[in-house]
């Protein structure tokens, strides 16, 4: 009985709009800005703001997902218990970002393959660009690209992942245009 009441309250809270909701990005709402960065969002995509950052998808998060995260330098990489710093080199940031990813996706560790790892211009600074491929537990091959950079405030990470077949390359240019619009 108690559980039923709690469930009803939770449903009511969700319905009343207290939880984060997906919003369609229209032409007038493309310029996104917060206290750390500004960025131009792709029109027609859906966006969701959460405590962990901004999430974007066009056809649903199983088909493609872009996330934009800002983390302060303290406890930046939670899984591997590492901080970032403003003086970190792009290759060091890439190394920690890959370690964090591996630590959070333990079951995919054996299949994680790094296809590209190189410096890239991001937000007017030099960051890293890593393209990797892995297979989910269900056997679906996925591609992921992540670009990251640090400044005095913290670490910025933009990730894009989609099924390797068809979807990843289809929306990759949108992701690249998004990262190029980042301003710190």
């Amino acid at each position, binding site marked *: 009985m108690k559980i039923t009441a709690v469930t009803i309250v939770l449903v009511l809270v969700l319905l009343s709009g207290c939880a984060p909701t997906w919003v369609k990005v229209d032409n007038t709402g493309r310029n996104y800005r917060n206290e750390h960065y500004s960025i131009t969002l792709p029109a027609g995509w859906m966006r969701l703001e959460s405590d962990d950052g901004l999430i974007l998808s066009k056809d649903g998060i199983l088909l493609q997902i872009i996330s934009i995260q800002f983390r302060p330098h303290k406890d930046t*990489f939670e899984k*591997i*218990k*590492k901080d970032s710093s403003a*003086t970190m*080199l*792009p*290759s060091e940031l*890439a*190394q*920690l970002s*890959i*370690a964090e990813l*591996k*630590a959070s996706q*333990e*079951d995919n560790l*054996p*299949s994680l393959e*790094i296809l590209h*790892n*190189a*410096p890239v211009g991001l937000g007017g600074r*030099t960051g890293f660009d890593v393209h990797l491929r892995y297979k989910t*537990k269900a056997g679906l091959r996925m591609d992921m690209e992540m670009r990251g950079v640090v400044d005095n405030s913290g670490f910025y990470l933009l990730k894009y992942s989609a099924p390797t077949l068809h979807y990843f390359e289809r929306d990759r240019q949108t992701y690249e245009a998004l990262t190029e619009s980042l301003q710190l």
Partner: protein
Amino acid sequence: MRHILPALAIALLTACETTPITPMQGYEDMQTLAPEESRLWYSAAELDQQLQKSGSLYKDEDLRAYLEAVMHKLYPEYDGAITVRIVDSPSLNAFALPNGSIYINTGMLSRLENEAQVATVLAHEGVHFTNKHSWKQRRNVKNTTAFSTGFGMVIGIPGLGDLISLSSIYGYSKDLEREADADGFRRLQAAGYDVSQAPVTFEFLLAEVEALDIDEPYFFSTHPALEDRINNFRELARQQASVNGYKGAEAYRSHVDKLQLELLADYLELSQQQSVLLILERQGAFDRYPPSAWYYLGEAYRLRNEAGDTERSVKAYQTAIEQSPGFAPSYRALGLYYMKNNDSLQAENYFSKYLELQPDAQDRDYIEYYRTSLKSGE
């Protein structure tokens, strides 16, 4: 359906508790199985297949053949029918399936120092198979759900939980573990190994478990606990008049050199520098590891980044270069160090040497970018 089958089989097995379970005497006994045991073997074979397909096995046929040869020395009457496979996982573990498939993790292999120590582990696991401990344990299992929970994590391969409820490898009783210790010890002795190495196998693993503040590795987590097991083996070794058997340090090292370095790199990739430090700061570690391991020690200090670690890392990189001048990553590491300390000349020297030694380096783009930045004074 796959989830229902184990439950049905368990029900069948627990309904047939009157058959006496006697240890096998050799290869011939593997050909004549009771129906209940056949089911266990069938399920174990399925688990073997799952592990093969999971991509989690370490592929080094030479090493595998070497371990099977050690197993054959320990169990000659089984004519090589006990197979050994290597799980590519840094966790400290080894386990046996009821059909004679023995698995040992790369993490475990990397910690062992000689053939006598790996024989200690294999002899112990072999007893679980020959004495049909899975079957015996099956009869005593009261909670098969808890039995199977977390198996994947236990062996270092998540996502393989279902079939293990049939294979009876999770949690042998205190008596069965003691039996495996004692019978395994006798096997070691009969095969001519230095039995004084048996307790050593567990002593340094205990030190690591304590230092990392982790749960005891699964291989030791059942009864008796790790310290009890060390005491068991010390007592068994003490009772022997002679302990001058075969140690096989050189033979072992020649087979695990590659694996050991790969595992150090894996730990660093996961920012688990503490494991690298525990391995390489151990007394005599560099007698067992190739000189390039100094580079990994330097990287572990750099990642730990405590007071004095920068100096320690630089010293380790320099030692790596002195002792293994053809090993490229040490030059890159020093190049990065000097670049961060605004010594452009030294940084350029080390970077250029790095790329000279490893022109197809995966991080070449970064190094070229750093060199350009140094030249332009950015």
